[in-house]
Protein backbone atom coordinates (compact mmCIF):
# COMPACT_ATOMS: atom_id res chain seq x y z
CA UNK A 1 0.00 0.00 0.00
CA UNK A 2 2.69 2.48 1.05
CA UNK A 3 4.93 1.57 -1.86
CA UNK A 4 2.01 1.90 -4.26
CA UNK A 5 1.34 5.44 -2.95
CA UNK A 6 5.02 6.22 -3.19
CA UNK A 7 5.31 4.93 -6.75
CA UNK A 8 2.13 6.43 -8.14
CA UNK A 9 1.86 9.73 -6.27
CA UNK A 10 5.45 10.68 -5.61
CA UNK A 11 7.41 9.02 -8.36
CA UNK A 12 4.40 9.32 -10.71
CA UNK A 13 4.95 6.02 -12.46
CA UNK A 14 1.56 6.42 -14.17
CA UNK A 15 3.02 9.45 -15.93
CA UNK A 16 6.11 7.49 -16.92
CA UNK A 17 3.93 4.69 -18.33
CA UNK A 18 1.83 7.20 -20.21
CA UNK A 19 4.85 8.97 -21.71
CA UNK A 20 6.51 5.72 -22.72
CA UNK A 21 3.27 4.62 -24.35
CA UNK A 22 2.97 8.01 -26.05
CA UNK A 23 6.43 7.98 -27.62
CA UNK A 24 6.36 4.27 -28.41
CA UNK A 25 2.85 3.78 -29.78
CA UNK A 26 1.79 7.26 -30.92
CA UNK A 27 5.13 8.53 -32.20
CA UNK A 28 6.34 5.09 -33.22
CA UNK A 29 9.80 5.41 -31.71
CA UNK A 30 11.76 2.27 -31.04
CA UNK A 31 12.38 1.53 -27.37
CA UNK A 32 15.88 1.76 -25.91
CA UNK A 33 17.26 3.99 -28.61
CA UNK A 34 19.15 7.15 -27.71
CA UNK A 35 16.42 9.45 -28.96
CA UNK A 36 13.68 7.49 -27.20
CA UNK A 37 15.55 7.46 -23.90
CA UNK A 38 16.32 11.17 -24.03
CA UNK A 39 12.83 12.21 -25.09
CA UNK A 40 10.98 10.13 -22.52
CA UNK A 41 13.34 11.28 -19.78
CA UNK A 42 12.85 14.91 -20.78
CA UNK A 43 9.05 14.81 -21.11
CA UNK A 44 8.53 12.76 -17.98
CA UNK A 45 10.83 14.90 -15.86
CA UNK A 46 9.55 18.26 -17.05
CA UNK A 47 5.89 17.36 -16.45
CA UNK A 48 6.62 15.61 -13.17
CA UNK A 49 8.73 18.41 -11.75
CA UNK A 50 6.25 21.14 -12.65
CA UNK A 51 3.29 19.24 -11.14
CA UNK A 52 5.22 18.42 -7.98
CA UNK A 53 6.71 21.88 -7.73
CA UNK A 54 3.34 23.62 -7.83
CA UNK A 55 1.94 21.36 -5.12
CA UNK A 56 5.05 21.40 -2.95
CA UNK A 57 5.65 25.14 -3.12
CA UNK A 58 2.02 25.66 -2.17
CA UNK A 59 2.30 23.44 0.91
CA UNK A 60 5.73 24.77 1.89
CA UNK A 61 4.68 28.41 1.45
CA UNK A 62 1.58 27.93 3.58
CA UNK A 63 3.78 26.60 6.40
CA UNK A 64 6.34 29.33 5.75
CA UNK A 65 3.77 32.10 6.15
CA UNK A 66 4.09 31.51 9.89
CA UNK A 67 7.86 32.08 9.82
CA UNK A 68 8.91 35.50 8.55
CA UNK A 69 12.52 36.69 8.83
CA UNK A 70 11.26 39.38 11.23
CA UNK A 71 9.95 36.71 13.57
CA UNK A 72 13.13 34.64 13.18
CA UNK A 73 15.15 37.68 14.20
CA UNK A 74 13.10 38.09 17.38
CA UNK A 75 13.27 34.40 18.30
CA UNK A 76 17.04 34.24 17.73
CA UNK A 77 17.61 37.41 19.75
CA UNK A 78 16.44 35.60 22.87
CA UNK A 79 18.74 32.59 22.49
CA UNK A 80 22.35 32.08 23.48
CA UNK A 81 25.26 29.84 22.53
CA UNK A 82 24.98 26.81 20.30
CA UNK A 83 21.19 26.71 20.71
CA UNK A 84 20.97 29.96 18.81
CA UNK A 85 22.92 28.28 15.96
CA UNK A 86 20.72 25.20 16.03
CA UNK A 87 17.47 27.17 16.02
CA UNK A 88 18.96 29.53 13.43
CA UNK A 89 19.72 26.60 11.13
CA UNK A 90 16.25 25.12 11.72
CA UNK A 91 14.47 28.40 11.06
CA UNK A 92 16.56 28.77 7.90
CA UNK A 93 14.72 25.79 6.45
CA UNK A 94 11.27 27.32 6.91
CA UNK A 95 11.90 31.03 6.52
CA UNK A 96 11.00 32.12 3.03
CA UNK A 97 13.31 34.46 1.24
CA UNK A 98 14.64 34.80 -2.24
CA UNK A 99 18.40 34.59 -2.64
CA UNK A 100 18.57 38.34 -3.26
CA UNK A 101 17.24 38.96 0.26
CA UNK A 102 20.14 37.23 1.96
CA UNK A 103 22.19 40.44 2.20
CA UNK A 104 19.38 42.59 3.69
CA UNK A 105 18.75 39.75 6.15
CA UNK A 106 22.44 39.57 7.05
CA UNK A 107 22.52 43.34 7.63
CA UNK A 108 19.23 43.35 9.53
CA UNK A 109 20.19 40.48 11.85
CA UNK A 110 23.61 41.96 12.55
CA UNK A 111 22.18 45.41 13.23
CA UNK A 112 19.69 43.84 15.62
CA UNK A 113 22.65 42.55 17.60
CA UNK A 114 22.62 38.87 16.64
CA UNK A 115 26.07 37.23 16.72
CA UNK A 116 27.41 36.79 13.18
CA UNK A 117 27.88 33.06 13.79
CA UNK A 118 24.13 32.65 14.34
CA UNK A 119 23.35 34.68 11.25
CA UNK A 120 25.69 32.45 9.24
CA UNK A 121 24.00 29.30 10.53
CA UNK A 122 20.77 30.76 9.20
CA UNK A 123 22.31 31.88 5.90
CA UNK A 124 23.93 28.49 5.23
CA UNK A 125 20.86 26.39 5.94
CA UNK A 126 18.38 28.65 4.19
CA UNK A 127 19.29 27.91 0.56
CA UNK A 128 20.67 24.45 1.37
CA UNK A 129 17.71 22.88 3.15
CA UNK A 130 14.68 24.47 1.57
CA UNK A 131 11.39 22.84 2.48
CA UNK A 132 10.01 22.44 -1.04
CA UNK A 133 13.27 21.13 -2.44
CA UNK A 134 13.59 18.53 0.31
CA UNK A 135 10.12 17.24 -0.53
CA UNK A 136 11.11 17.06 -4.18
CA UNK A 137 14.29 15.23 -3.25
CA UNK A 138 12.18 12.67 -1.38
CA UNK A 139 10.03 12.03 -4.44
CA UNK A 140 13.09 11.28 -6.58
CA UNK A 141 15.47 9.48 -4.23
CA UNK A 142 13.17 8.37 -1.42
CA UNK A 143 12.68 9.51 2.15
CA UNK A 144 15.91 8.12 3.59
CA UNK A 145 18.06 10.20 1.26
CA UNK A 146 15.93 13.32 1.86
CA UNK A 147 16.12 12.91 5.61
CA UNK A 148 19.86 12.32 5.53
CA UNK A 149 20.22 15.40 3.33
CA UNK A 150 18.30 17.55 5.84
CA UNK A 151 20.31 16.31 8.81
CA UNK A 152 23.64 16.83 7.07
CA UNK A 153 22.62 20.27 5.80
CA UNK A 154 21.65 21.34 9.31
CA UNK A 155 24.86 19.94 10.80
CA UNK A 156 26.96 21.87 8.27
CA UNK A 157 25.01 25.04 9.08
CA UNK A 158 25.39 24.64 12.85
CA UNK A 159 29.09 23.74 12.73
CA UNK A 160 29.81 26.47 10.17
CA UNK A 161 28.11 29.16 12.25
CA UNK A 162 29.71 27.95 15.47
CA UNK A 163 33.21 27.99 13.95
CA UNK A 164 32.68 31.51 12.65
CA UNK A 165 31.66 32.54 16.20
CA UNK A 166 34.78 30.90 17.63
CA UNK A 167 37.06 32.77 15.23
CA UNK A 168 35.70 36.13 16.50
CA UNK A 169 35.52 37.78 13.13
CA UNK A 170 33.28 40.69 14.00
CA UNK A 171 35.93 43.06 12.66
CA UNK A 172 35.44 41.41 9.27
CA UNK A 173 32.01 42.92 8.77
CA UNK A 174 31.68 46.15 6.80
CA UNK A 175 31.46 49.05 9.25
CA UNK A 176 28.09 50.34 8.05
CA UNK A 177 26.52 47.01 8.99
CA UNK A 178 27.69 47.22 12.58
CA UNK A 179 26.35 50.73 13.11
CA UNK A 180 23.19 50.59 15.10
CA UNK A 181 21.04 53.29 13.60
CA UNK A 182 18.53 54.38 16.19
CA UNK A 183 17.00 57.28 14.35
CA UNK A 184 16.16 55.55 11.11
CA UNK A 185 15.12 52.17 12.37
CA UNK A 186 11.43 51.56 12.10
CA UNK A 187 9.29 49.08 13.91
CA UNK A 188 8.11 46.86 11.09
CA UNK A 189 4.84 45.16 11.70
CA UNK A 190 5.18 41.41 11.78
CA UNK A 191 2.19 39.77 10.19
CA UNK A 192 3.20 36.15 10.76
CA UNK A 193 0.56 35.76 13.50
CA UNK A 194 -2.26 37.92 12.25
CA UNK A 195 -2.84 36.61 8.73
CA UNK A 196 -6.13 34.83 8.12
CA UNK A 197 -6.24 31.41 6.51
CA UNK A 198 -7.52 33.00 3.33
CA UNK A 199 -4.57 35.41 3.24
CA UNK A 200 -2.13 32.56 3.83
CA UNK A 201 -3.68 30.57 0.97
CA UNK A 202 -3.41 33.63 -1.26
CA UNK A 203 0.22 34.10 -0.22
CA UNK A 204 0.98 30.42 -0.92
CA UNK A 205 -0.58 30.68 -4.37
CA UNK A 206 1.37 33.87 -5.14
CA UNK A 207 4.56 32.09 -4.10
CA UNK A 208 3.81 29.24 -6.51
CA UNK A 209 3.49 31.72 -9.38
CA UNK A 210 6.51 33.81 -8.33
CA UNK A 211 8.83 30.84 -7.86
CA UNK A 212 7.79 28.98 -11.00
CA UNK A 213 8.21 32.17 -13.00
CA UNK A 214 11.68 32.47 -11.56
CA UNK A 215 12.87 28.88 -11.97
CA UNK A 216 11.11 27.45 -15.03
CA UNK A 217 14.05 28.16 -17.32
CA UNK A 218 16.54 26.57 -14.90
CA UNK A 219 14.32 23.49 -14.74
CA UNK A 220 14.14 23.18 -18.53
CA UNK A 221 17.92 23.61 -18.80
CA UNK A 222 18.49 21.18 -15.93
CA UNK A 223 16.18 18.56 -17.39
CA UNK A 224 17.75 19.15 -20.80
CA UNK A 225 21.22 18.44 -19.44
CA UNK A 226 19.81 15.48 -17.51
CA UNK A 227 18.18 14.08 -20.65
CA UNK A 228 21.41 14.57 -22.59
CA UNK A 229 23.41 12.71 -19.95
CA UNK A 230 20.73 10.05 -19.84
CA UNK A 231 20.63 9.43 -23.56
CA UNK A 232 24.00 10.34 -25.00
CA UNK A 233 26.80 10.09 -22.48
CA UNK A 234 28.12 6.56 -22.13
CA UNK A 235 27.82 5.02 -18.70
CA UNK A 236 31.47 3.97 -18.69
CA UNK A 237 32.59 7.57 -19.20
CA UNK A 238 30.54 8.89 -16.29
CA UNK A 239 31.56 6.01 -14.08
CA UNK A 240 35.23 6.66 -14.70
CA UNK A 241 34.82 10.38 -14.04
CA UNK A 242 32.38 10.41 -11.14
CA UNK A 243 31.89 6.80 -10.12
CA UNK A 244 33.30 4.96 -7.15
CA UNK A 245 36.43 4.08 -9.15
CA UNK A 246 37.57 7.68 -9.02
CA UNK A 247 38.62 8.62 -5.47
CA UNK A 248 38.40 12.31 -6.33
CA UNK A 249 34.80 12.18 -7.58
CA UNK A 250 33.32 14.06 -4.60
CA UNK A 251 36.04 16.69 -4.74
CA UNK A 252 35.47 17.17 -8.45
CA UNK A 253 31.68 17.40 -8.08
CA UNK A 254 31.99 20.01 -5.32
CA UNK A 255 34.51 22.19 -7.13
CA UNK A 256 32.43 22.16 -10.31
CA UNK A 257 29.27 22.94 -8.32
CA UNK A 258 30.46 25.87 -6.22
CA UNK A 259 30.62 28.68 -8.79
CA UNK A 260 27.46 27.48 -10.57
CA UNK A 261 24.37 29.51 -10.01
CA UNK A 262 21.29 27.38 -10.37
CA UNK A 263 18.19 26.66 -8.45
CA UNK A 264 18.02 23.38 -6.57
CA UNK A 265 14.98 22.53 -8.70
CA UNK A 266 17.11 22.77 -11.83
CA UNK A 267 19.87 20.69 -10.26
CA UNK A 268 17.67 17.77 -9.28
CA UNK A 269 17.08 16.40 -12.81
CA UNK A 270 20.85 16.41 -13.42
CA UNK A 271 21.35 14.60 -10.12
CA UNK A 272 18.68 12.08 -11.08
CA UNK A 273 20.34 11.35 -14.42
CA UNK A 274 23.75 10.97 -12.78
CA UNK A 275 22.43 8.48 -10.22
CA UNK A 276 20.78 6.47 -13.02
CA UNK A 277 24.19 6.33 -14.71
CA UNK A 278 25.79 4.81 -11.63
CA UNK A 279 27.21 7.82 -9.83
CA UNK A 280 27.26 7.34 -6.06
CA UNK A 281 24.67 9.19 -4.02
CA UNK A 282 27.26 11.05 -1.94
CA UNK A 283 28.90 12.48 -5.05
CA UNK A 284 25.55 13.60 -6.43
CA UNK A 285 24.44 15.18 -3.15
CA UNK A 286 27.79 16.97 -2.84
CA UNK A 287 27.23 18.44 -6.30
CA UNK A 288 23.71 19.56 -5.43
CA UNK A 289 24.76 21.09 -2.12
CA UNK A 290 27.67 22.92 -3.73
CA UNK A 291 25.42 24.38 -6.42
CA UNK A 292 22.76 25.60 -4.00
CA UNK A 293 24.82 26.67 -0.98
CA UNK A 294 27.44 28.69 -2.80
CA UNK A 295 27.45 30.50 -6.10
CA UNK A 296 29.54 33.18 -7.73
CA UNK A 297 26.74 35.83 -7.64
CA UNK A 298 26.04 35.22 -3.95
CA UNK A 299 29.76 35.34 -3.10
CA UNK A 300 30.10 38.66 -4.91
CA UNK A 301 27.05 40.02 -3.08
CA UNK A 302 28.33 38.84 0.28
CA UNK A 303 31.69 40.48 -0.36
CA UNK A 304 29.91 43.85 -0.21
CA UNK A 305 29.15 43.37 3.48
CA UNK A 306 31.94 41.12 4.77
CA UNK A 307 35.69 41.34 4.27
CA UNK A 308 37.87 38.84 2.49
CA UNK A 309 39.07 36.86 5.51
CA UNK A 310 35.55 36.05 6.71
CA UNK A 311 34.39 35.40 3.16
CA UNK A 312 37.20 32.88 2.59
CA UNK A 313 36.51 31.28 5.99
CA UNK A 314 32.83 30.95 5.12
CA UNK A 315 33.48 29.42 1.70
CA UNK A 316 36.13 27.05 3.08
CA UNK A 317 33.94 25.78 5.93
CA UNK A 318 30.98 25.14 3.67
CA UNK A 319 33.10 23.48 0.95
CA UNK A 320 34.93 21.22 3.39
CA UNK A 321 31.62 20.34 5.05
CA UNK A 322 30.14 19.34 1.72
CA UNK A 323 33.17 17.28 0.67
CA UNK A 324 33.32 15.38 3.98
CA UNK A 325 29.56 14.78 3.77
CA UNK A 326 29.93 13.44 0.22
CA UNK A 327 32.57 10.85 1.17
CA UNK A 328 30.65 9.80 4.29
CA UNK A 329 27.49 9.33 2.21
CA UNK A 330 29.38 7.25 -0.36
CA UNK A 331 30.69 4.96 2.38
CA UNK A 332 27.24 4.46 3.87
CA UNK A 333 25.28 4.62 0.62
CA UNK A 334 24.19 1.00 0.95
CA UNK A 335 22.05 2.09 3.91
CA UNK A 336 20.25 4.76 1.91
CA UNK A 337 19.29 3.22 -1.41
Amino acid at each position, binding site marked *: MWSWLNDQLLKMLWLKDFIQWFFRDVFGLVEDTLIYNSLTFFAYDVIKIFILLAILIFIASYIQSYFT*PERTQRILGKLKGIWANVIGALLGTVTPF*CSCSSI*PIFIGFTKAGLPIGVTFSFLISSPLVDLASVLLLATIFGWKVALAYVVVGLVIAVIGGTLISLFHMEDQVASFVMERNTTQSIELEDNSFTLTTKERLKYAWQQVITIIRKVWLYILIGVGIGAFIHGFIPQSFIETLLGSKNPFSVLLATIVGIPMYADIFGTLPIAEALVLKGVSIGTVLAFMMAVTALSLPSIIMLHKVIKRKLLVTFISIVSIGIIVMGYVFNIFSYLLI
Partner: protein
Amino acid sequence: MEIKVLGTGCANCKRLLGNVNECIDRLKIQANVIYVTDLIEISKTGILRTPGLMINGKIVSYGKVNTIEEITELISRI
Protein backbone atom coordinates in the same frame (compact mmCIF):
# COMPACT_ATOMS: atom_id res chain seq x y z
CA MET B 1 4.91 62.26 -4.53
CA GLU B 2 8.12 60.29 -4.18
CA ILE B 3 8.05 56.54 -4.62
CA LYS B 4 11.13 54.43 -3.94
CA VAL B 5 11.55 50.81 -4.96
CA LEU B 6 14.23 49.16 -2.83
CA GLY B 7 15.98 46.14 -4.23
CA THR B 8 19.33 44.59 -4.92
CA GLY B 9 18.66 44.12 -8.60
CA CYS B 10 16.96 40.75 -8.58
CA ALA B 11 14.11 39.78 -10.88
CA ASN B 12 11.43 40.39 -8.25
CA CYS B 13 12.62 43.93 -7.59
CA LYS B 14 12.60 44.78 -11.27
CA ARG B 15 9.09 43.42 -11.62
CA LEU B 16 7.90 45.62 -8.75
CA LEU B 17 9.53 48.63 -10.40
CA GLY B 18 7.70 47.77 -13.63
CA ASN B 19 4.40 47.52 -11.78
CA VAL B 20 4.94 50.88 -10.07
CA ASN B 21 5.67 52.62 -13.36
CA GLU B 22 2.68 50.95 -14.99
CA CYS B 23 0.47 52.01 -12.09
CA ILE B 24 1.54 55.64 -12.32
CA ASP B 25 0.87 55.65 -16.05
CA ARG B 26 -2.60 54.30 -15.47
CA LEU B 27 -3.45 56.73 -12.68
CA LYS B 28 -1.92 59.62 -14.65
CA ILE B 29 -0.33 61.12 -11.56
CA GLN B 30 2.91 63.01 -11.07
CA ALA B 31 5.37 60.92 -9.14
CA ASN B 32 9.11 60.71 -8.81
CA VAL B 33 10.02 57.01 -9.00
CA ILE B 34 13.47 56.10 -7.70
CA TYR B 35 15.01 52.64 -7.89
CA VAL B 36 17.33 52.24 -4.89
CA THR B 37 19.94 49.52 -5.22
CA ASP B 38 22.46 50.84 -2.73
CA LEU B 39 22.82 48.35 0.11
CA ILE B 40 23.57 51.01 2.71
CA GLU B 41 20.43 52.93 1.77
CA ILE B 42 18.31 49.78 1.84
CA SER B 43 19.70 48.60 5.15
CA LYS B 44 18.92 51.98 6.74
CA THR B 45 15.21 51.42 6.21
CA GLY B 46 15.36 48.29 8.37
CA ILE B 47 13.60 45.96 5.94
CA LEU B 48 14.74 42.34 5.92
CA ARG B 49 13.09 41.30 2.72
CA THR B 50 13.36 42.89 -0.68
CA PRO B 51 11.76 44.30 -2.70
CA GLY B 52 10.65 47.17 -0.51
CA LEU B 53 8.25 49.93 -1.45
CA MET B 54 8.53 53.38 0.07
CA ILE B 55 6.10 56.23 -0.49
CA ASN B 56 7.11 59.71 0.70
CA GLY B 57 9.80 58.30 2.97
CA LYS B 58 7.62 55.67 4.62
CA ILE B 59 7.89 51.90 4.09
CA VAL B 60 4.49 50.71 2.92
CA SER B 61 5.34 47.18 1.82
CA TYR B 62 8.26 44.78 1.73
CA GLY B 63 9.05 41.21 0.82
CA LYS B 64 6.55 40.96 -1.99
CA VAL B 65 5.93 42.01 -5.55
CA ASN B 66 2.80 44.13 -5.25
CA THR B 67 0.29 43.97 -8.06
CA ILE B 68 -0.75 47.13 -9.86
CA GLU B 69 -4.06 47.07 -7.96
CA GLU B 70 -2.26 46.82 -4.62
CA ILE B 71 0.04 49.71 -5.50
CA THR B 72 -3.00 51.81 -6.49
CA GLU B 73 -4.51 51.05 -3.11
CA LEU B 74 -1.28 51.99 -1.29
CA ILE B 75 -0.99 55.26 -3.20
CA SER B 76 -4.63 56.16 -2.53
CA ARG B 77 -4.02 55.82 1.20
CA ILE B 78 -1.42 58.58 1.20
